[in-house]
């Protein structure tokens, strides 16, 4: 350590960095103390809110499916399934009706639809009469 350094050190030691404001300690520990107490009501409120919203959703928003509705849904599913089958049969019958030698088979399919798929009876009858005028029969 030379003389110059000692002189500078001497100047510096006439001062020192300022200390903290008086309220800093209180600020640190008061803030920290309050935090956990604020957390629990917030968590409890959040849980209640979620539970309440869930219940509300069940009661209001979500469709209320009863036993009757389930039966109706099953019926609808059956009808859709039958409609699909009837459409397929009619399509096959239409193709076969145009093929020489397959007319009888086509007629059999039309009659199958007429007899077993009441919702497609008139459609099948119409196509049968159109394809085979000789088979024309009243609805």
């Amino acid at each position, binding site marked *: 350590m030379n*003389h110059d350094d000692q002189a*500078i050190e*001497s100047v*510096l*030691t*006439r001062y020192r*960095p300022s200390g*903290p404001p008086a309220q800093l300690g209180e600020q*640190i520990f008061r803030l920290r103390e309050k935090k956990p107490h604020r957390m629990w009501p917030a968590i409890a409120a959040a849980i209640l809110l979620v539970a309440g919203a869930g219940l509300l959703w069940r009661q209001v928003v979500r469709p209320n499916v009863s036993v009757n509705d389930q039966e109706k849904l099953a019926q609808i599913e059956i009808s859709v399934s039958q409609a699909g089958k009837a459409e397929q049969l009619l399509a096959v019958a239409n193709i076969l009706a145009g093929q020489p030698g397959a007319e009888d088979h086509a007629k059999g399919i039309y009659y199958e639809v007429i007899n077993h798929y009441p919702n497609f009876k008139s459609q099948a009858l119409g196509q049968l009469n159109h394809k085979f005028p000789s088979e024309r029969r009243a609805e």
Partner: protein
Amino acid sequence: MRAKTETDSDDPRVVLETAYGKYGDDLYRYALMILTDHSAAEDAVQTAFMKTLKLGKRMLQIASLSDYLRIAVRNTCYAMIKKQRRLDNELKTKRVRPILEKLDEGSNEDERASIEQALCTLPVEQREVLHMKIYEGKTFEEIARMVGIPADTAASRYRYALGKLRQILGSEYQREDNRHES
């Protein structure tokens, strides 16, 4: 091993409050010298203590709470500087509250202001070592251990800092020099 505290309490909050009473002032001065701004120093000390408090009971296992807090404050200060690289320069011009206080009657306001300004021109690493050496009376070995650098590096940082201050405070230094000679 239990934290070296002056209380037998097992409550981490009480332990830390006691530690604040004992080391808070020094840690604040240390942060102030690194950041050269009171608000930033308050934030750094507050953040470091809050993080330490979050350790809960684990805090009681810390071997030296004073060293731990010192490192926590230091890390927070350097993180703040890294986050806002311009902090040092901006604060030099915006400083309202002085960072130094007079210890004797022989000093004057102009001198204080020029020393303060000169300190702020030092690189933060040099200012930190200077603070620990001059204002905390630590040896280079102690500084080296706390800062995580070789003792030779700590010593050279200190010498560089003094050299730069000597350049800037030419007139102050000569005045002091004359006083010594007379």
